[in-house]
């Protein structure tokens, strides 16, 4: 039976993903390292500041893991939250685990402590790149209810690989923010079909931003993470130039597209309007040789 990753809390996801009984939490809730800034603004705090970090094993391989809880302030990054993530990544420099797994779910910077959050995201970015440069792969899992936006949307794309379900969303500015700023004609955030075909897992997979697309199933996320932990990070000049060429090609090929359907049609997919409803298996078979 499927166990929904989308519906789980961060804690449930993390426990379900790792080998049973293997997870050891660092700075657990009993330490009560909460955000002092929220209390000052009369806003409830969480004992783990919305992120669980620790170590465990994945099919016997030692891994460091972090899971953001979207239910708490949309998974947004504050001072403590961000420092826990940075500290975990830097721990990988010492421990050299098989991989660092980031179970992202975040709207970006926590506005209640916006400056601290922005700087923290930048520290996370530097730390991710340091860990990768040291040869430890950083793998992102993205399939939660709140998606992954803002600074964490950038962080995700700094990593080695992204595993997504079609329910997952990945972007920079959330549709609501764009609609609020530029109006409903620019981006109708309540048109959920539009939202998902713009930032959802299937489109991200077709663009090549998501490495693997899986069903909304905890076991499928686990299997995908396992398949990726052997990857070797490459941040060399040639790799960056190759990425540059790919992103340039994307601009040339799709720069004038107004909708995901235009992109998919240009990828040579027959009846692109059918893609959203296909189950993962059929979708993957349909687009296997069509990704950008």
């Amino acid at each position, binding site marked *: 039976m499927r166990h929904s990753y989308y519906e789980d809390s*961060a804690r449930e996801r993390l426990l379900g993903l790792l080998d049973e009984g293997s997870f050891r939490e660092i700075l657990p809730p*009993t330490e009560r390292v909460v955000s002092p800034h929220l209390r000052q603004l009369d806003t*409830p*705090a*969480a*004992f783990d500041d919305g992120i669980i970090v620790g170590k465990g094993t994945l099919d016997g391989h030692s891994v460091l893991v972090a899971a953001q809880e979207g239910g*708490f302030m949309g998974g947004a990054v504050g001072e403590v939250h961000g420092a826990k993530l940075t500290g975990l990544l830097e721990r990988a420099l010492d421990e050299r685990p098989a991989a660092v797994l980031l179970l992202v779910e975040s709207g970006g910077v926590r506005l209640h402590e916006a400056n601290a959050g922005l700087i923290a995201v930048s520290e996370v970015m530097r730390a991710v790149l340091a860990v990768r440069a040291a040869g430890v792969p950083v793998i992102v899992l993205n399939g939660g209810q709140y998606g992954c936006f803002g600074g964490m949307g950038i962080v995700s794309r700094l990593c080695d690989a992204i595993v997504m379900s079609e329910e997952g969303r990945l972007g920079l500015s959330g549709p609501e923010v764009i609609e609020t700023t530029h109006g409903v004609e620019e981006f109708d955030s309540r048109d959920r079909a539009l939202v998902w075909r713009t930032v959802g897992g299937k489109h991200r997979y077709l663009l090549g931003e998501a490495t693997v697309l899986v069903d909304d199933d905890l076991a499928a996320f686990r299997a995908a993470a396992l398949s990726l932990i052997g990857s070797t990070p490459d941040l060399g000049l040639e790799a960056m130039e190759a990425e540059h060429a790919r992103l340039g090609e994307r601009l040339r090929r799709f720069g004038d597209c107004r909708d995901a359907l235009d992109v998919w049609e240009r990828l040579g997919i027959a009846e692109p309007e059918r893609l959203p409803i296909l189950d993962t298996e059929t979708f993957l078979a349909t687009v296997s040789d069509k990704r950008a």
Partner: protein
Amino acid sequence: MESLTFEYQGGRPLASAPPATLVGVVSSGNLEVLVEPTDLGGACRIEVLTAAVGFGAIWQAVLDDFFDRHRIADVRISINDVGATPAVVSLRLDQALEALTGGQP
């Protein structure tokens, strides 16, 4: 925000001292419950931090019933609440105790 503390006497200590456990999420209409076995001289102490102000009497009634159901001693329970209904509070408390004791009384 309102801070409330409740203390109960006359419970039984847990058979063993299991590790602390946390259930729930600090999100709208929900709460997190942290349960820690600790020496409180036989008391069960419950500390509540809630975004909904003015419901002390309801908390008292909900927690009285919770204590009656489980009658535990030397346990510290800490709650961060964002306006959960009594039904959700009771459910999370029961889940937390279940997770702590693995279903054993």
